[in-house]
């Protein structure tokens, strides 16, 4: 994670491989940013798995419930393909883009 203040939002840069082993660290990364605006940078993602998708969707839902901004920055082809395969391309539109 590279957390930095940009336009008041912390940027959470996703790892390139979001496989089964990345889910727990990803949850911890989001957990550390709870309550603060977050911009998710998926521009380097090569592979997205179901467990990390769960974490991402849960985080989005949690931030939304909290009323705290949650946005999506850059997205890589690998990330978009992963969403598509898992039937979750709608996230590209339901999460605000920057």
């Amino acid at each position, binding site marked *: 994670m590279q957390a930095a203040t940009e336009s008041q939002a912390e940027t959470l840069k996703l790892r390139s491989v979001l*496989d*089964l082993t990345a889910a727990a660290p990803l949850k911890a990364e989001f957990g550390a940013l709870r309550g603060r605006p977050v911009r998710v940078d998926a521009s380097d993602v090569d592979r997205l798995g*179901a*467990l990390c998708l769960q974490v991402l969707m849960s985080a989005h839902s*949690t931030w939304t419930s909290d009323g705290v901004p949650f946005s999506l920055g850059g997205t890589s082809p690998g990330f978009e393909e992963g969403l*598509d*395969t898992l039937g979750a*391309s709608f*996230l590209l539109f339901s999460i605000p883009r920057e």
Partner: protein
Amino acid sequence: MDPLASIKITFFQECEEQLAELETGLLTMKDGETDPETVNAVFRAVHSIKGGAGAFSLTELVRFAHVFETVLDEMRAGRLAPDGRILDVMLRAADVLADLVRAARDGGTVDEDRCQALIAELGALTGVQEAAVDDGFLDLDFAPITVSVDVGEEPEPAAAAGLEMAEGAPAAEKLVVAFRPRAALYAKANEPAVLLRELASLGRAEITLDASSLPQLDELEPEAAYLHWVATVETDDEAAIREVFDFVEGDCELSIARVPDDCEPVAARQPPVDEAETAGELDIKALIARATGGATQTAAAAQAAPAAQVISLRDHPARAPDMSARKEDGHAVAAASPTIRVDLERVDRLIDLVGELVINQAMLAQRVLESGLARSSGIAVGLDDLELLTREIQDSVMAIRAQPVKSVFQRMPRLVREVAHATGKQVRLVVEGEGTEVDKTVIERLTDPITHMIRNAIDHGLEPPERRIEVGKPAEGVVRLSALHRSGRIVIEVADDGGGINRTRVRQIAVDKGLISPDANLSDEETDNLIFMPGFSTAETISDISGRGVGMDVVRRSIQALGGRISIASRPGQGSTFTLSLPLTLAVLDGMVVSVGGQTFVLPITTVMETLQPKPTEVRRLEGSVPLLLVRDRYVPILDVGHRLGYRAGPIEPTEGVVLLVEGEDGRSAALLVESILGQRQVVIKSLEANYQRVPGIAAATILGDGRVALILDVDAVISGPTSEPALAETRLLAAG
């Protein structure tokens, strides 16, 4: 909020709309308009509720709606004539359906006996008894977990996957795969994405993600399995599918079913209803998919297709899943007007912000004016443009929140039926002006007062049928509910053709209860107004109908809290009319800014008919009355605002100030005397009650361009009172010659 709870709220909101459509349609049919369009609209309303209810396993609601729908289907097919008797049954069925919806929404129960009786009555109309209701409808489930579709039998209304057979459809090769991984699948380093990718390689696949079990981040176990999928794959090779899941067989729930290719999501199933008719259909499955983080998409089309589908889901959530399929079939698809649902909170926030914008714009204009810039300067011209634009934005924003009063009025026919039934009276409700628009915040607070007034009109106003016949009236009484815009306000009237207020009795009750002294000298109007006194109730016994003695005082208080007023006009033997007058919006008003007693006040410009500076010859004085102003051969009382509100010890000479001819909501006029007129502008209303307290004669406050607070006059309150009675004043003058 839990995604499922959120979508359920949406479902119940749409149910209310469908119930309103249902009642409107049935009443229209009862008035003799039984054209296919109306019958179809009624059918569609019930069908939609049934479809959504099935998705939430609201079994009682589904069961009842199904029986109801069957009758309507017979009617659509022309096998059942919609006569008055049948429509009465259907109106009562609509009431029960509404009860079932609300019981499902709010908890609680419905009158089971009534429900069963209606089911029996509806069944008798078609010859279909309840036992014949296909329980398959009760199996509807939004969660795409298991699939059980048997093409060899009678068309089954539903399958657990939310799919059902289209009648008479030719079979084609599609397999529906419901895939629910367990945590063990992940623990063994298996990846659903890999499995789904392989699945998609077998044929064109539509993959729906079900995230309804996904918890909030705090509760999420990173290695637990929350996501499920349903894939519809164009293949007949079941073995190949099983092979994909071979290695995870024990670590997931998997079911595969064969369905024909034109199976549709449950809510999209339309018996012989044409395309245009389905535009308003609830598709709860699509909504659930959307709200819980699920969407249907074609995995094979990895690039462009998802975007288009998601946008269509967002724009037309109820239609998206079946629109593309029908287009492919070459059918015309009715263009539904795109609508979105927006949280009222967001709209309110926008209105608040625009209000601040208006204030800031006014302050900016004031500063530019004070800087001495010429009116023709570029900045001044630019500010004028900005003002126009600001006004336009404000009007547009307010229009978002404006709604017709129909949503409130539509609830009243049922109320009338029930109160009429409970009191044994015959009542016809006539509704007028239901398209009259008013701010949503006002509408929301209209229901209770109107409900109470209508109950009162029937319970206390209308005579029993036998009494009506005795006095030469039709046995059926009429209650008229109407709405119209007048003087920048909405005026709602509830009128009955009953016996009018029994003033002798009202007065006696007031005396008995110590509300007035026995020797009080009251006019008819003052006597009528006694019913608004707290604790007053003319009912001999407290009844369920009129509200357990809550009384009209509560109605009046709730109306006053909205900046409104209520008045009565009653004629013995002919009936009573209750008139509510409310502001159209609680956010802004166009005002005339005046100076009174050294203070700045704002009058709603809609109340001002004319402004003028009185000449000595136009002013008449009569003993015991306020001065009168001659305006076009008519005398109106001159009311010194500063004096009346206590800003000055005594009145000023009318010729020393300016008068504003105003008209109150009851039509009476007065000349309000002020020191000077400072201008005219739009102001943002700030509640005085919320920020300070209620002040007699003052409706609200605002912030002017110079930053000062100005009070907004309550014109009706200012002109009310015995000395301002124009009819009296005119009478005196005329009598004096």
